[in-house]
């Protein structure tokens, strides 16, 4: 009995370690590759692209937690959600700061023009702004303080992810394969959530 109970806890611990490793690896790898000059001919572009992709991966992973829980019954997976979400925010910040700092050298007028006039940047920037309150309120204290409102607030993660995917889709020139795959994944995750919600409300009505 004791061993059985320890197992799931170990599984979460291992998953946590894996998330930390995967989450920190891209910026560490990018930095070393930058100094070793192995980032290709346009490192700025590579850094921004790679960090943008990892932002989406972590956003989708965060949003996959509940659907996976529903489909597999692995309830403890919820314990991973905050870490995944914070890594999504972390990569979004690295992505944005690379764009602001090394792409535009903190040239504010260009950045403001981009954010206001280029729709793909408007979408991406809005997504980042939406992630800020979610990251801030991810602590236990805020969860307690906000109570039911916390869940409602954190539904914004779906809006942020949708805007992130749109940002990606609007950015590419012709090969829309990856943005569309991201969109389909997001829609799939949302569909699973809705399906279970309907089931639950139907069950409630029956009782």
């Amino acid at each position, binding site marked *: 009995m004791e061993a059985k109970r320890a197992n799931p806890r170990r599984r979460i611990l291992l998953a946590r370690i894996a998330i930390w490793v995967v989450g920190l690896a891209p910026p560490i790898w990018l930095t070393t590759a930058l100094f070793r000059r192995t980032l290709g*001919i346009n490192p700025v572009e590579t850094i921004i692209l790679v960090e943008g992709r990892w932002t989406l991966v972590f956003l989708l992973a965060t949003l996959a937690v509940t659907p996976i829980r529903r489909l597999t019954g692995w309830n403890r997976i919820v314990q991973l959600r905050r870490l995944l979400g914070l890594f999504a925010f972390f990569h979004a910040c690295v992505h944005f700061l690379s764009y602001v700092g090394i792409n535009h050298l903190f040239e504010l007028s260009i950045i403001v023009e981009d954010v206001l006039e280029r729709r793909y940047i408007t979408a991406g920037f809005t997504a980042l702004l939406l992630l800020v309150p979610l990251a801030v309120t991810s602590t236990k204290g805020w969860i307690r303080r906000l109570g039911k409102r916390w869940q409602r607030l954190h539904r914004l993660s779906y809006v942020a992810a949708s805007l992130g995917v749109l940002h990606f889709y609007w950015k590419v020139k012709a*090969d829309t394969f990856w943005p569309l795959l991201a969109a389909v994944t997001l829609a799939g995750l949302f569909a699973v959530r809705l399906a279970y919600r309907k089931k639950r409300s139907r069950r409630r009505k029956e009782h």
Partner: protein
Amino acid sequence: MIIRIRKNSDVPSSEITPEQVYINRRKFLGTSAGIGVATFLGAGRAHAAPQDEEPNTWEEITSYNNFYEFGTGKEDPAKNAPDRLITDPWTVKVDGLCNNPADYHLEDFIKPSTIEDRTYRLRCVEAWSMVVPWRGFPLADVIKRAEPTAAARYVAFETLWDPEQMPERNWRPRIDWPYREGLRLDEAMHPLSLLVTGLYGRDLPAQNGAPLRLAVPWKYGFKSIKSIVRISFTEDQPPTTWATQTPREYGFYSNVNPDVDHPRWSQKTERRIDSGRLFGSRRIDTQFLNGYADEVAHLYEGMDLRKNF
């Protein structure tokens, strides 16, 4: 052998342009002679190239390319094209509104012209740029040989399209191949318009558009079509790949212009590739007509370049 005797009255428009072009050409040869044949650069004129405008390295030029037939990643063409693209034998078809349509073996196509080295700026529509020491010959040579008829007003170009050689996965949303580009006849006749056969004095690598590509240095890079198999003379403005794919973003002219932004990004500055730097490049201001305004601005006199972007 057919000898065409032309009446005085039927001077094709293509013959009117060359005169002006010839005058410009002499001017152009005169100024560049002092600088040396190998470093043209558009230097020595009003829009002189800054002192630090050194050619990009072979490595930079040949490993960062847009050649979607070989993949959409910048490194894909260098990975895929050299092993797949068959450049020998290579045939170039010249057809449309001209007196001398023909299919040429590449060798015969190049032979009559004098090959020269010219270093041009290359400004990609994606806002990065390089300085490239091309080797080639004036596009005007080919046009004169073809003798476009009086009705011809445009030149259309086509890239090879062979799915066997080009691994573009056709289940993805894709471009309507073959890749097509075009120029107005006077643009094509301009002495700066170069048919390129080499780079740094060597044969052109596959990823750069071997064995024959265009270099039109005052226009965004995608106008400089790669791996050309067909050159046609037309009366109407020919459809071009990017302007057809996304007409809101890419026009037929696509002249480099810092005052006309791409809908999704600014064209005021560019990232000059420079692998000597930590971040691999430096931001510089984009010049009107990529710094070739003195040579080509007259082609667009009276035109609204915002509308004709």
